[in-house]
Structure formats: C-alpha cells, structure tokens
C-alpha cells in the first residue's frame, strides 16, 4: 500500500498524522534495509550464528563463574544473568534501531548528506532510523523470552516491573541521545567509527552489575558516561535495590541527555558545509 493511501485510510489529524507519516517511512526504510541483508543470506547466517554463539558462551561463562564463586558483588547467579539479559535487551534494541549511525561518516565525507537534507523528512530521523538491522531484529524475541523467564524466577513485585519497563525505555532514550551526539560530532570532526566503538566497549562494562567496579571508575560510568544508569539501573529497580531517588535521577538524566544532544545536533547541522558534494 502506498504512503498516500495509508495516510488517507488512517484519517488522522495534526500530530498523530505526523507520527503515522514517520512510522510508515520507518517501515519502508526498514524493509529496504532488510532486503539488502536478505540478498546476502550467507552473510546474514554467519553473523547471526556468531552473535548467538557469543551470547550463549558468555552466558555459560557467567553462570559457571558466579555459581562457582557463590555470588558476584552480592548478586546470585540468577540475578547476574538477569543483569546480563537486560544489558543485551537494551544493547540489541538500540543496535536494531540506530544501526544507520555506523554509516553516517561516509554520508558526511561523500556529501551524500545533501540528498537527505533536501527531502521532506526530518534529517535526524533519517540518519538515526534509516537502516534497521535484521540480525538484531531476529534476536529480539528470544531475548525478550529469556529475560521474561529469568525475571519471573526472581519474583518481582508489580511496581518493580513497572519501574523496570520505564527504565528500559529511559535507557533507549539515553542511547538515542548518545547516537545523536555522535552524529553531531561527526559533522564537526568527520569521526564516527572510533567514538562509537569506544562507546560500545564502555557499554560492555555494563554486562555485569556496575557495583563490581571501584570508584572513581564506578562514578564515571554511572554518572558521567551513564552506562550504569542505562544498563544496570533497570535490573536494579527490578530487583528492588534501587531507591526512588535514583529512579528519578535516571529519568532526569534521560531527559537532560536527550535535550543536550538535540541542542548539539542543531548546532552541528548548521556547521555542515557539504564540502565533498
């Protein structure tokens, strides 16, 4: 069904119409990105197998390790696995949504960003969501199922589940803020790859509860580069070990980081010179 027909059928007004407009475009861009991968089935299979092996081996390693030691920073093996699954959930969903960011540098240095800017579409939306990743998409349902299974074993209360889900959304907002900051910096410095990879490496520190790190590293990865807020706090809220004050601080962090990254984007896009086109 064509976009115009969609909009006609939806019969929406104002902002709802705009959201629908962008949602349909996102579906189209996602479909195109998936088609590219589906044309290279062997590559798709090899990366999928690699990701699954990596996930299973790390999970097994954590299980052996914490079972043998009795606990990790006071958390049982089931709890540590839940931290790991929550980390993966945020990581995989953000990779699925924002994969296009990894291709942004080429867009800037080749001048192809011009082609995005002239379209009747928010360029930030196109740059962030332009290429959903099918490999991550395939891994989301089993990951959600595993998180649900382990979560249920921990017998959380209703409120803990609500906080957990809200903090997961907050984590995705922080992740989006980071990617916006990266693409903004890319316009100014032409550098993306290393910044993203360093962020990915730092994120991996959140594979396990941030409580294992010592200060000042723990402080830095919790409040300066908010890996802890993003990856550890949801699981902590779920386990009921995160106070209401820190939950509120997390939401404030999410809102502020998104606000400042958007300001940075507005500043950076004005600096774009289209030099290579």
């Amino acid at each position: 069904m064509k976009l115009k027909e969609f909009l006609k059928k939806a019969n929406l007004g104002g902002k709802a119409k705009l959201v629908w407009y962008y949602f349909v475009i996102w579906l189209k861009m996602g479909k195109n990105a998936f088609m590219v991968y589906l044309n290279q089935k062997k590559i798709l299979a090899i990366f999928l197998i690699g990701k699954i092996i990596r996930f299973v081996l790390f999970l097994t390693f954590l299980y052996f390790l914490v079972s043998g030691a009795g606990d990790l920073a006071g958390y049982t093996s089931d709890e540590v696995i839940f931290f790991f699954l929550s980390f993966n959930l945020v990581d995989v969903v953000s990779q699925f949504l924002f994969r296009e960011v990894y291709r942004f540098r080429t867009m800037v240095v080749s001048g192809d960003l011009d082609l995005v800017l002239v379209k009747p579409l928010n360029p930030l939306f196109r740059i962030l969501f332009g290429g959903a990743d099918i490999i991550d998409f395939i891994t989301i349902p089993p990951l959600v199922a595993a998180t649900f299974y382990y979560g249920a074993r921990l017998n959380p209360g209703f409120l803990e589940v609500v906080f957990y889900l809200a903090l997961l959304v907050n984590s995705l907002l922080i992740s989006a803020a980071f990617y916006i900051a990266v693409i903004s910096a890319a316009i100014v410095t032409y550098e993306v790859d290393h910044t993203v990879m360093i962020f990915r490496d730092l994120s991996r520190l959140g594979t396990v509860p941030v409580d294992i790190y010592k200060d000042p590293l723990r402080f830095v990865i919790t409040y300066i580069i908010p890996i802890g807020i993003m990856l550890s706090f949801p699981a902590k809220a779920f386990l009921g070990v995160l106070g209401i004050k820190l939950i509120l601080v997390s939401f404030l962090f999410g809102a502020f980081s998104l606000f400042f990254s958007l300001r940075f984007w507005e500043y950076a896009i004005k600096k774009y010179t289209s030099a290579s086109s």
Partner: protein
Amino acid sequence: MVRLTMYKYFQVGKTSLKQEIAYPINFVMWRVRNIIQILLVLFLWDSLISDPRKVLFGYSRDMILTYIFGIMLVRAFVLSSKSMDVAGEVARGELSNYLIRPVNYFFYWLSRDFASKVLNLSFVFVEFSLLFLILRPDFFFQTNIFYIGFFIFSVFIGILIYTLFLFITSSVTFWMPEMGWGAHFLLNVVLVEFLSGVLFPLDILPQAIQKVINFLPLPYLVYFPLQIYLGKQSTYELVRGFVVEIFWLGALALFLNFIWKKGLKVYESQGR
C-alpha cells in the same frame, strides 16, 4: 642472499610502522579500546576474589590478577595483527599487485605484523605501568628462568599460529569475496575471544570441556603461554602442550599452503 631478503622484509616492516604512526589517532583509539576491554575482566575477577586468602577455581588473587595483566601483554604480542586485511586485498583483487612482485605474500604480512606488534608493545608497557600504579594489584613475579624462556617461546609460536589462522580465514574470499569480515567475525572475534583465554583462564571450565579445547589451536594463543608463566603446568602438561602447539603450527602451515594454491587457481582479480 639471505641478508638481502631479510633487509627487504625489514624495510616492509619499517614502512608499515611509519604508516601506522602517520595516523596516530586511529592507533591511540585502538589502544584506549584495549584498556577498556581489559577493565571488565579485571574488575570482574577482582570482585570475585577480593580476599587475598581466597582460592577460586585453583587461582589465588595474585595469580588471577597476574593472569589478567598477562592478557594485556600477550594480546599485544599475539593478537595485534594486521593480517586480517588480507581478506579485503583478495576480495578487491589487490593481491595481483603482490603476485607480480618479488615478495612472498605471507612473509610480507608477517613483517607488517611484527612492526605492528612492536608499536603495540611499546604502548602496552606504558598502559601496563599506569594501570599497575593506579590499581596496585597483587602480582605474581615468575623467577624461574626456564618458565620465562618457555613462556617467550610459546608466545612466539602463538604469533605464528595466529597469523596462519588469519590467512586461512582470509582465504575464504577466494571463493566468496563478500564473506571476508563475516568469517573473521565468527572465527577470529567470537571463537578467539572465548577459546584463547582472553576472557578467562580456560581451566575454570569442567574437565571434559577442557580436554577437548586443549586439542584445538586457540588455547595456545594466550592461555597456554600464561599458564607457563604462572608455573601451573606440570612437566607432562608442558611437553604435551608444546607437542600439540607445534603440531598445529605444522598442520596449519600445510593447510594454508594447500588452500592458498587452490585459491590462486580460482582467483580472478575481480575489480582490477
């Protein structure tokens, strides 16, 4: 003649080193990433064995922290390699440029690898010292000269095994040019991460799994050299380890020779 050949590859290494220094930010960022990666492993074990008297999976605190600091060093020697780029050169048809030159392609990359390792190693010493001063970990200093000698020898063989492994993986691109990064991701990122001992000492795994893994080439990249340094290998285990390691070195060299010749027959220099 030998001297001239050596000089030729020395010059390749020297040029490669200059090339890496010409892009310092890339290199520094790569080193920063290495430090961040080691922090997870370091603090994970630090948290698990916080008591100096505690022994977990046969490791005391000083032994495990030495193992982790050792990973930094051995990684810089063994796993810092540029030979991964071979896959791209074959896929893009750039291999032709070397086939018409009086150079052995394997030794050409080995020379570049050694240059890269020298650069990485010089940085590792600085990082090692800084982390050591900041974290002040309990550390086990090996004083037995034989263990140190065997450690250096096993690292040297590990370097050769890893280079052969990268070349064999890259050879996939003779038949499937688009598969280069995929094959490297599966074999040299995922499997090496778990089976070489970079993430954890392999002897924490159940005996049955260890027996199988010890017959694969990957534990000889990081785990085996560090076990020798820590003096955790009995004479029998040491001999058996070196026999298996040298077997893999020979087997991989023969396999590469076989697969490379087959690959060159189907090589079409696409894109040239």
